């Protein structure tokens, strides 16, 4: 069993917190966030191709990438890396191009847990609760995973039965 992801989206507050531990040293996890060749191997939903136009994970750096879903949809995202401290911390903006000008500010804390283990904590702040829910929802629309395809099949069976 892999380490669980803990997602907290408090009712009535425009935040999302994500926490995840890794059985890998903090330097390796940080590197997997910094090197675009590594980032494209894990960022985003399963089965999506990730095109990285720009990825400069340094203070005052910027990024832009497009996720291509298996149905041919394209989902663009961009932002700037406000501050990046190696193996420790980053602040970035995040904008889904489907909802322009709605920009989240995200902090990423990289923590050394000792014994070759580490933790990542992400705190995303959206302009409003509606923006949080709306942006995440629209961002997820194309995010049909294998599991949800099964669920869709299930719903379809229920409808025709």
């Amino acid at each position: 069993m892999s380490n669980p992801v803990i997602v907290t989206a408090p009712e009535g507050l425009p935040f999302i917190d994500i926490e995840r531990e890794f059985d890998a040293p903090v330097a390796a996890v940080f590197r997997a966030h910094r090197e675009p060749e590594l980032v494209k191997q894990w960022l985003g939903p399963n089965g999506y191709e990730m095109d990285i136009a720009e990825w400069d994970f340094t203070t005052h750096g910027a990024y832009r990438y497009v996720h291509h879903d298996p149905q041919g949809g394209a989902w663009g995202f961009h932002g700037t890396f406000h501050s990046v401290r190696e193996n420790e911390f980053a602040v970035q903006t995040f904008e889904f191009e489907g909802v322009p000008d709605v920009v989240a500010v995200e902090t990423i804390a990289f923590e050394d847990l000792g014994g070759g283990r580490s933790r990542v904590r992400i705190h995303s702040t959206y302009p409003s609760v509606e923006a949080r829910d709306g942006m995440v929802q629209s961002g997820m629309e194309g995010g049909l995973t294998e599991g949800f395809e099964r669920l869709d099949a299930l719903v379809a069976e229920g409808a025709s039965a």
Partner: protein
Amino acid sequence: MRDHGADDGWLDRAFLALADPVRRGIIARLSRGPATVNELAEPFSITKQAVSKHIQVLEQAGLVTRTRDAQRRPVHLAPAELERLTGWIDRYRLIHEQQYRSLDAVLEASVGDDTAAHHPKEKES
């Protein structure tokens, strides 16, 4: 909103349970109302015991419940649990779940590089 970090296995169990066509058929039938094991077994060309097994899997995944209605013990759908599968927070969480499992794989693959050679690039910034 809920935090599902504590029950990481729940989504796995739910999707595993729904991976089987007989179990999806059972869920589809139950979406029209509770039914007994006999009633559920009817449309399938498998034994009652096999259907009971499938119901057990769905029960363990929290997708159905059974009540004590004298001898009948009808099976009910647990709609709240099914709804959890479709809530945006779950989609969001599931995507991160998958994403970080991919990151685990990347990290595992890079363990070799780390011990074999040092990347001078990493010393900067």
